[in-house]
């Protein structure tokens, strides 16, 4: 796949110490889950940051772990959202 802009939020962003980056994943990275696994293979802090319950969004729409990131220009990774008690 082509280059994709990753956005990080919440604890993922804090663990990675950055709010995003541009990456060029290999062709076997097809889904949100694939993308998180591929990033985790980089080692720390990625392995820890992406090791929990990581959610995603593709082109600013909520996406499940099995949803495609193929051809996407903007993909976000984040922990479970919500701030209401």
């Amino acid at each position, binding site marked *: 796949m082509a280059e994709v802009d990753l956005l990080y939020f919440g604890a993922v962003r804090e663990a990675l110490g950055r709010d995003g980056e541009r990456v060029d994943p290999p062709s076997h990275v097809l889904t949100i889950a694939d993308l998180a696994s591929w990033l985790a293979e980089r080692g720390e802090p990625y392995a820890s940051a992406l090791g929990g319950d990581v959610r995603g969004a593709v082109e*600013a729409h*909520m996406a499940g772990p099995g949803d495609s990131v193929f051809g996407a220009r903007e993909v976000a990774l*984040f922990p479970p959202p919500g701030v*209401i008690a």
Partner: protein
Amino acid sequence: MIDVRVQAADFDPGRQLARLEALGNAAVASFVAAAECGEEGLLVEHYPALAKNELAAIAAEADSRWHLAGLILIHRHGRFSSGDRLAFVAVAAPARAAALEACAFLVEALATRAPFWRRESLREE
């Protein structure tokens, strides 16, 4: 009437309720969420484009499931002190059950699906 807002500014619950009361329905149910945090305050970050889309999707889902006359969703972001308002949900409907159920659905959806996060550390980045 569906009104969905993502904003840094505070809001007036009474004024928002009055907008729904003006629709002339028998029931208006509402919910105000407030920040709970220590003296250091709370920073709520969000993903603006996703927030816009997801809140609109949540509102549309409620509007399709219940017979509603009006719906207001407000979710704030930014810095908060304890007690500051975080979010607001209100619905007007001809019957109490629809208003109460839709309000509860919307609150649960905001609490679990709206792309806002507590910043654990308040260090500036």
